[in-house]
């Protein structure tokens, strides 16, 4: 092995020494691999100096670069750094600037994200920095430009931060495709992947390098473990609630912990939780500690402010959502508090890594379960962290809609030969198994929509020309592409603008923009309703164009935003652990007394779900009959099961009315006495839960399901079938939603095998529906369903019963609402006559 001195230029060794630091072995190992021309994957826990390791090859290379002489061609872009989060790019810029300035290196570092102003982006294209810190979407945009070849031709390194989180989504597919094109522009390009521990590192090693033979792998450098984190579950004298996600009960204890520590990071799972927690903390913030809020809906400038204050150690606590849970370095955080259950063991490990960013010191974390089921989940997650369990999801095959977007982008950059682009595309690991025929279908889709009925030849977006290349039909296509790029489809949102109520009661126009909020949430509000946003209680005044107008209010108890963002389903691994805990009273000892009592009570009144059995309870309540299924398979799988069971019960004339799903259980209610029907054999449970529901029933239901429609909408936007935005005018979310639904209906009845319908079904099976998990469960519980017929609600059923009424209405229930409204009128009319 080469010695440090051969690897590191003097200016670097001096710099390390001036700080009394020594370069770490993995930093040098990575540098050496880079010098040898290899791409590498670095797997290391947080605090291991991963970021510096990733940048050392570029920094040393750039430091040794010849000084540009007059008349020399200006150097082009040298290094790209890609992170999943805008905040991360900004944070890295800050952290990187320090060593570069201290060493006096002539290196220009800039960021480019969705928040970067247009003039700066233009300038960057002409005069690129040496190191560009950016997001996947920006790379695709740059690649779709006619100048892409020139812009990227000298690119030497590309660093992927938090690679494990980038690759598991459609965003990762888009990035893999972009990488395949970057390799084309800069054939000697070397990749450096930085990742937390993952279940299967080989996936990432493949992802990082071109798959020409399928045997290519990046080098792997692994840094072992670091100190074990010190995690505990919050001890409290307060009563832990049955359901809900706010953990309001624990505020006093949480605040106490903040006062006892230097800097605390508080993680929550959803933005609404973040808002609520922030407000609650300030209500009891008697010492006026600087406590800040950070989530994705807030205005970018507000987020940047919080990040900067945090880096300067000016804050005592930050309440944050997943926008912050990736490797941002936060100076002196000495405590992480996690509100609510972490939903996945790996996610917990990631978030806890935020405290004490020095590998050799244990991080300190406290979990605060928001309800009683979460107590068990936290306990399970805690056990998992100690045994180092990894539940990162497996990588999926490259999505069709993403490829369609990429193909159009490539046509915008320059005309392409179909076979050349095909070979380039299958060099990207996620698309390795894509057949040439399927690729041709997708090209056809990009060109004319790929319909069996060929009526759109004259409207083709890309055309095959005489020289055999595909090129875009007109420049507007490129403009449209640029406006619709990306794979992240947010729920339609509106800006929230603060206004004042004038003395005469009218509403002013101006005022600062506070952030964005989901349109569907606003639809539930009437003017005068209050809600929590940006850390304050606002009064909803109305919607003007694409803005939500709100004024300040002194109302203390707002309606709470029911943001959908950031809801994660319970991971299979944790579900399994929770199930194990339930059946083993020995494990209850480690649970708080009130949770133990709750489980004891359940044992007395009904039964506890046992391993590999499915507990099903039925009971009447308010003239309705409920059945609760404790299956612990996560919200998505439960939702699918709920849909399918409701359909079956409908066919069996049990008159089901609705269902609600949580991570732990599924509740279905009906007009008929379900318990009685199960007991006397009118409905056979084995038949009801037969796996064949995943066959025809699933198909039939899927076709009408709003879930599939929502998935279709995403596929349609990503693939460019419908627009995200019009040049010049924003479509409002509602219009997009309506037209996507209607297009879906038309396509379903005329061309159910259209390539976009295929893409939609494939997405739904792994995403919103979690069919794989459901089918595993149905298999497991075959012949093992235990029915408890009760006269009253059971203790275990309380949490899910409290969720009822919070879910959207679906399917047949729509008709019943209509007929109910019509009947009310008829009754009223009849009343007048008599």
């Amino acid at each position, binding site marked *: 092995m080469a010695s440090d001195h051969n690897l590191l230029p003097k200016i670097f060794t001096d710099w390390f020494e001036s700080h009394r630091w020594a370069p770490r072995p993995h930093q040098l190992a990575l540098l050496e691999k880079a010098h040898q021309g290899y791409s590498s994957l670095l797997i290391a826990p947080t605090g291991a100096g991963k970021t510096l390791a990733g940048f050392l090859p570029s920094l040393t290379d750039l430091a040794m670069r010849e000084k540009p002489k007059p008349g020399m061609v200006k150097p082009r872009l040298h290094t790209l750094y890609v992170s999943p989060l805008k905040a991360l790019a900004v944070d890295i810029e800050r952290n990187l600037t320090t060593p570069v300035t201290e060493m006096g290196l002539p290196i220009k570092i800039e960021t480019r994200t969705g928040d970067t102003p247009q003039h700066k982006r233009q300038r960057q294209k002409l005069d690129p920095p040496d190191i560009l810190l950016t997001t996947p979407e920006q790379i695709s945009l740059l690649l779709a430009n006619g100048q892409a070849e020139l812009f990227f031709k000298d690119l030497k390194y590309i660093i992927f931060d938090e690679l494990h989180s980038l690759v598991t989504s459609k965003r990762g597919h888009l990035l893999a495709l972009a990488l395949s094109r970057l390799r084309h522009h800069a054939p000697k390009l070397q990749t450096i992947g930085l990742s937390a521990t993952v279940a299967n590192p080989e996936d990432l090693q493949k992802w990082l390098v071109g798959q020409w033979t399928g045997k290519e792998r990046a080098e792997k450098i692994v840094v072992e473990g670091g100190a074990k984190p010190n995690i505990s579950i919050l001890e409290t004298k307060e009563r832990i609630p049955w359901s809900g996600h706010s953990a309001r009960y624990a505020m006093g204890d949480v605040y106490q912990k903040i006062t006892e520590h230097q800097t605390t990071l508080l993680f929550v799972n959803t933005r609404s939780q973040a808002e609520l927690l922030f407000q609650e903390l300030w209500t009891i913030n008697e010492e006026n500690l600087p406590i800040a809020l950070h989530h994705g809906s807030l205005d970018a400038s507000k987020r940047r402010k919080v990040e900067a204050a945090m880096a300067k150690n000016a804050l005592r606590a930050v309440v944050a959502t997943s926008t912050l849970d990736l490797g941002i370095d936060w100076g002196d955080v000495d405590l992480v508090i996690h509100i609510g259950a972490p939903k996945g063991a790996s996610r917990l490990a990631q978030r806890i890594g935020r405290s004490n960013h020095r590998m050799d010191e244990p991080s300190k974390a406290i979990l605060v379960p928001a309800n009683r089921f979460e107590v068990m989940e936290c306990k399970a997650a805690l056990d998992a962290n100690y045994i180092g369990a990894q539940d990162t999801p497996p990588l999926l095959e490259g999505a069709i809609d993403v490829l369609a977007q990429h193909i159009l982008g490539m046509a915008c950059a320059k005309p392409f030969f179909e076979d050349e682009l095909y070979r380039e595309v299958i060099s990207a690991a996620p698309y390795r198994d894509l057949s040439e025929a399927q690729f041709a279908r997708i090209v056809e889709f990009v060109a*004319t*929509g790929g*319909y069996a*009925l060929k*009526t*759109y030849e004259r*409207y083709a*977006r890309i055309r095959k020309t005489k020289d055999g290349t595909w090129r875009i039909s007109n420049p*507007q*296509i490129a403009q*449209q592409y640029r406006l619709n790029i990306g794979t992240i489809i947010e729920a339609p949102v509106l800006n929230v603008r603060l206004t004042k109520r004038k003395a005469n009661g009218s509403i002013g126009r101006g005022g600062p923009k506070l952030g964005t909020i989901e349109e569907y949430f606003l*639809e539930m509000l*009437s003017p005068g309703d209050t809600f929590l946003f940006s850390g304050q209680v606002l009064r909803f005044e109305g919607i003007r164009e694409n803005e939500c107008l709100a004024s300040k209010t002194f109302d203390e108890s707002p309606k709470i935003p029911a943001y959908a963002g950031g809801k994660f389903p319970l991971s299979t691994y944790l579900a399994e652990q929770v199930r194990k805990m339930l059946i083993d009273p020995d494990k209850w000892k480690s649970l708080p007394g009130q949770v133990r009592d709750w489980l004891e009570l359940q044992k007395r009144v009904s039964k506890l779900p046992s391993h590999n059995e499915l507990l099903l309870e039925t009971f009447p309540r308010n003239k309705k009959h409920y059945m609760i299924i404790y299956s612990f398979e996560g919200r998505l799988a439960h939702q699918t099961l709920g849909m399918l069971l409701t359909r079956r019960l409908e066919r069996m004339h049990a008159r089901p009315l609705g269902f609600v799903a949580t991570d732990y259980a599924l509740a279905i209610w009906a007009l008929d006495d379900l318990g009685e029907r199960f007991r006397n054999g009118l409905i056979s449970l084995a038949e009801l839960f037969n796996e064949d529901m995943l066959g025809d029933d699933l198909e039939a239901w899927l076709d009408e399901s709003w879930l599939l429609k929502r998935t279709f909408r995403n596929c349609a936007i990503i693939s*460019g*079938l*419908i*627009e995200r935005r019009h040049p010049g005018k924003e479509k409002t979310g509602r*219009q997009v939603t*309506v*037209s996507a639904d*209607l*297009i879906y*209906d*038309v*396509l379903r*009845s*005329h*061309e159910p095998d*259209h390539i976009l319908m295929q893409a939609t079904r494939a997405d739904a099976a792994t995403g919103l529906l979690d069919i794989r998990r459901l089918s595993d469960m149905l298999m497991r519980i075959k012949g093992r369903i235990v029915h408890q017929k009760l006269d009253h609600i059971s203790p275990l059923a309380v949490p899910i019963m409290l969720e009822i*009424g919070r879910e*959207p*209405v679906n399917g047949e*229930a*729509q*008709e019943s*609402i*209509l*007929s*109910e*409204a*019509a009947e*009310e*009128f008829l009754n009223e009319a009849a009343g007048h006559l008599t």
Partner: protein
Amino acid sequence: MNIVSPLALNTNPKSALHTELFGVEVVCDHRGVLYLPTSKMLIVSDLHLEKGAAFARRGMLHPPYDTSQTLLRLKLCIDDYQPETVVSLGDSFHDQAGSEFLPELARDMIKLLQAGRNWVWISGNHDPKPHTSIEGDCADEISCGPLRLCHEPETDNADGEISGHLHPAAVITRRNKSVRRACFATDGKRLIMPSFGSTTGGLSLKHKAFKGLFETSNLFAHVLGKEQIYPISWSKMRG
């Protein structure tokens, strides 16, 4: 000729609702067409034919099946009522180019629907000019007894007006859940038709565009259900 009564064909008596508009009997069919028994006239509004193609012309390749689907649904209604006259109440095509570039198949289907009856294309804001490449009379508005048929509702003249344009939809909220469906909107003086085109959306009756058009005390939304019409009064709609 022995004509079967159209209503005898409807197995569900609720599938169409008989009501009076400005003294004239009208039948609101749950499929979104209006029938005038005395004049044997079938009215349909906002077909938005060739909407897919209109988008395709602008670079978004929506499925090309909306036209045939809409025409097929219309054919079922025409078969049931066997009207002497069919009036398409404007926005028959999503854009003016629609009728010109209409694919042969759709052209033939329209001819088939038109055979043996009068056909009127009322002009709409999407298709303001007469359709010259297809059969049928073109007009800005027509009258039928005391009724006046036009595309856009007029603010100051409600009497006996049948119009479309606004794509009315009712939003019904019960138990914190809401349902949105296309509807006929009428206060007995004027009636606004639901949009019939397969890929057309709806606008809530509470939207400001409807303001001042109806006497809300008499306003009813005849909501299109899967198999029946649900008559719902203004006061029963979400506030």
